[in-house]
Structure formats: C-alpha cells, structure tokens
C-alpha cells in the first residue's frame, strides 16, 4: 500500500469529486427552473393565462391558454379524486385486513410498486385501444380513465408507506379494546391525515404534468372544456404543440406556458413539503 500522504491526497480528490457531483445534481434543478424562467418571463402576460385561443392561436394570433389550464385542472382533479377513492381502501385492506407478512399482502404490494414505474405512454396506448374498442372518442373522459389508472399505484404506495409508520402496538391496543378492524382503520386514517393530503398532492402533481397518457386519449381543442365527452386541451400538451411550431412568437408562448406549469408544480411541491413536516410533528 502506498504511503499515508498519497492516500490522504486521494481522499481529498475523491471528496472534491463527490462535492462537485452533488453540486451538479442539485444545480441541475435550479438550472432547469432558471432556464424556463429566463425564457418564459418575457412572453408571459395576463392575456396568456386569462383567455382561451381566439382562433389561429397556434399560428400566432391572439388568445391564451386558459382553456388548457382549466382542462388540466379538471382532468387532474377528477382523476386524483377517483384514484384516492380507489387507492386508499386498497392500501387499508392490505394493511389492516390481510394478515401481515402473508403472500397476498406481499404480492399485492410488490405489484403496485412495480406498476408505479410503468410509463404513461403504455397506459395511454392501452386506454386508447380500449376507447376505440368501446367507441369513445378522444375526450376528457378518456384522459380521466388513463390518468386514474396511472395514479392509483402512487396513492396505494404512498398511503402504504404512511400506514407502515404507525406503531404496531397501537394496532394491538385498539384491537384488544374490542374495536373492529374498520374502526381501527378509521382511527388510523385520522392519524395519517396530513400524509394523505401529501399522497393526493403527489398524485395530482403527476396527473397535471403527464403528457404521454393524454396525448392519445384526451384530444385537443380550442374551446373551454364544458362536457366530459368532449376533447379538451391540457397544459402539457399545449406546451408540446406550441413548441413544435416554427413561428418564434408561438414558441415563446410555449416557454411562457412552461413557466405557468412550473409555477403550479412548485406550489404543489411546497404544499406537500409543509404537510409532510406537519405529519412529522403528528408522530407519537
């Protein structure tokens, strides 16, 4: 082995390399947000966010992306609500009703873990062919179905993590006092309430930012979304289409729309963070 000095020098070099890579990774975040801010800000106007396209918006005429913002919010809200209604009972069932450590529990949790990583384009492709098969055209409804499928694993997984943090003794105590599993579950839900909102926000963030899933299923339109069976614009798709336009003015609007989406995501992340720290305090 070489002498101590060179070994210590090696250590120093390694440490610098580690610090640099840490900086590169955290820096990339500010870099991305910074780039979008820098390019998008000059094009952002009140008109952009408050009006829907006035015909020919995508070739540079007047209007805004209000319809896309609204469409995204509708889509994300409804599908997150559905995913929550389906996801929470599933994770309660897996944690409270099934014997812990049983094959069913482990297999199901693994399944949802794995589904968490399936890309949205696959969900989109599937939903699209189902829609063709039963004869629904590209619409808000199709998008909602797709995004719900996509977000259920997120809800199940996050709630499961939360339920795992509850001390097992608490479960035993409530059972020994004679409460039923359902009553205990209700109590546990109160216990993890701030965390549940975190899960919902996570799912909402994923839902509002998804492109590949809605690309095939939601369609696109210049009007405000009024009915669930009509195609609707969404914010990520609006960005995508505007960016592929050759007209600089329209591209600039894409940057501005990207900025709007970034703001929405940042607000969600900050709320999630606040709720997560509340859940920490909530701990026994």
């Amino acid at each position, binding site marked *: 082995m070489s002498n101590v000095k060179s070994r210590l020098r090696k250590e120093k070099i390694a440490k610098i390399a580690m610090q640099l890579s*840490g900086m590169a990774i955290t820096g990339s975040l500010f870099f991305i947000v910074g780039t979008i801010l820098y390019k998008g800000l000059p094009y952002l106007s009140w008109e952009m966010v408050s009006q829907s396209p006035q015909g020919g918006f995508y070739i540079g005429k007047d209007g805004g992306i209000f319809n896309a913002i609204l469409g995204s919010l509708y889509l994300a809200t409804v599908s997150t609500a559905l995913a929550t209604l389906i996801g929470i009972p599933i994770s309660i069932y897996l944690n409270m009703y099934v014997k812990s450590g049983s094959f069913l529990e482990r297999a199901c949790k*693994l399944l949802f873990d794995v589904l968490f*990583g399936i*890309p949205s384009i696959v969900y989109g492709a599937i939903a699209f062919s189902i829609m063709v098969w039963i004869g629904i055209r590209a619409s808000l409804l199709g998008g909602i179905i797709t995004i719900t499928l996509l977000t259920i694993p997120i809800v199940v997984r996050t709630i499961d993590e939360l339920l795992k943090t509850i001390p097992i003794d608490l479960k035993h105590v409530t059972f020994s006092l004679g409460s039923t599993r359902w009553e205990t579950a209700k109590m546990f839900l109160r216990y993890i309430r701030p965390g549940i909102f975190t899960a919902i926000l996570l799912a909402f963030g994923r839902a509002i930012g998804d492109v*590949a899933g809605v690309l095939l299923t939601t369609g696109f339109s210049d009007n405000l979304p009024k009915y669930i069976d009509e195609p609707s614009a969404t914010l990520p798709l609006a960005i995508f289409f505007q960016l592929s336009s050759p007209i600089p003015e329209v591209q600039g609007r894409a940057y501005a729309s990207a900025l709007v*989406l970034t703001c929405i995501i940042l607000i969600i992340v900050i709320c999630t963070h606040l709720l997560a720290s509340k859940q920490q305090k909530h701990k026994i």
Partner: protein
Amino acid sequence: MNWRLIKDKLAERSFVLLLLSSVVVILLILIGLAMKSVPLLRAESLLTVLTDSVWSPLKGNFGFLPFIMGTIWVTLISLVIAVPLCVLASVYLVEYASEALRKMVLPLMNVLAAIPPVLYGVWGVLFVVPILSDYIAPLFGVNTTGYTVLAGGIVLAVMIFPIMISIMVEVLQTIPQELKAASLSLGATKWETITKVILVKAKPGILAAVVLGVSRAFGETVAVLMVCGNIPQLPKSLFDAGYPLPALIANNFGEMMSIPLYDSALMFAALLLFVLIFGFNLLSRLILNRLEEKAQ
C-alpha cells in the same frame, strides 16, 4: 350479528372488490396488448420483428431494430452520465454531509422528481440542444442540429437523478455503523472505507437503483421525443439522431388505423415496453425488499 361487525365485514368485502378489480384490470391490459400484437407476430416471426432494421409501415415492413437501438443508446448514455454522479453524490450525502445539508438536498430531489417530463423536454430544447449544436459538436468536427441521442441521454440523466439518489441514499443508510468503525479503526482512510467496504456491501442495492433508473429511462416518452430527432435509423455515434420505442408509439398513434398491421405493431411496441419495464422493476424491487428485511 352485531352491527359493528357487519360494518367491518361490509368494508372488507368492498375493499377486496376494489383490489380485485384493479388487479383484474392489469391482467386485462396484459392480455389485451398480447392479443393485439398477435396479428403482427403471425405475419412475421418474433425474431425478424426484433432484428429487422427496415421500418416502412406502408410497405408492410415492421423492423423494430432502429427503435430498440435508439432506446438502448439513449438509456446507456443517460446511465453513463447519471450513475457515477449519483453514486458519488449519495455517498457524500450519507458519509460526509452535515444533517442540515442532507435535509436541504433531499427535498430538492423531490422537487426534481415532481417536474413533469414536458418541462424537461422544454429545457432540453432551450438549453441542451443549442449547446450541443453550437459548442460541443464543433469540438469534434461534427455538424448537427443538436437533436441527437446525446441530447436525449443528457435530459434523461437529469430525469433519473432523483430516483437513483433517493434509493442509493436509503441503501447506504442501511450499512451498519460497526462495519465502518472496524475498517476505520484498522487505519483505512474514509475514502478507502467507502470504496472497499461500504460500496461493496451496498452493491446489490446500488444495482437495484440503477435498474430502476433504467426502467424509468426506457419508458420516458415526451422529454426524449422532443430532443432526440426521431429518425428511424440505427444511431452510429453520439451525434446521430435516434428514435426510441416510446416516441414511436406517441408519434404514430393518430394514423395507425388506416394502415394494415400498423396498430398491431404499435401495440407490440407497448407490450415490449410493458414487459421489459415490469421485469426490471420487479427484479430491483425484489432486491431492495430483501435488503430492507435484512437491515431490520
């Protein structure tokens, strides 16, 4: 029977129903995709479909090789960039960084994870692509628009940072303190302890994190589609355009109904993605779960 017990049973029944229906949906998805891919596989064998490099749906040629190679190129580039950076950074976070720094960086990773793919794509178009075409490619004497597999790889690398960092940090935290203490007390420097003890011990976990990163990179659609050129060819260098599998599905779904076998081919692409990513995820989750059990 007591009313409370009835309520309990009712809840149980309905929860089982929800669970079963979601599992059934997944099975249906798999069966549906497989059935849709059958016509293509009946027309041509699996081997020709996977190894043929000619893609011209109008003539009935469905060779998936360009897309498979495009996906592999982009994924490999992103791994080459992301893996060393993430290993180094997460070792630093766990072994050197103060509690305060860790508490600051890890939430930032959550922000990075929350940024939607389309924003990564916008960043790629605004920043990575021009840098590549104006500064980096000329260094190598190459003339390119910047829409290349390298651009796709860079954007993907940034996208898989958060998942790799968060898992690697978790894995490194499960390494027992005694192990490090023993190595340090034998006179090894901290860096030697890290490379010869900690990283060796954490290898399966790090591998699992990398595999999860791969599966994320495989399926990433829109961000990559926006920056990597989308030309169905076999990329030969970093500065060639590529066409990954997910982009193929996204770009061609609108017109697939009019050409025979086209929809079957696209469904086969989706099936391929589904099976590969499901397999990768399953593998790394199993490794991670086992490590977690061991650590407890």
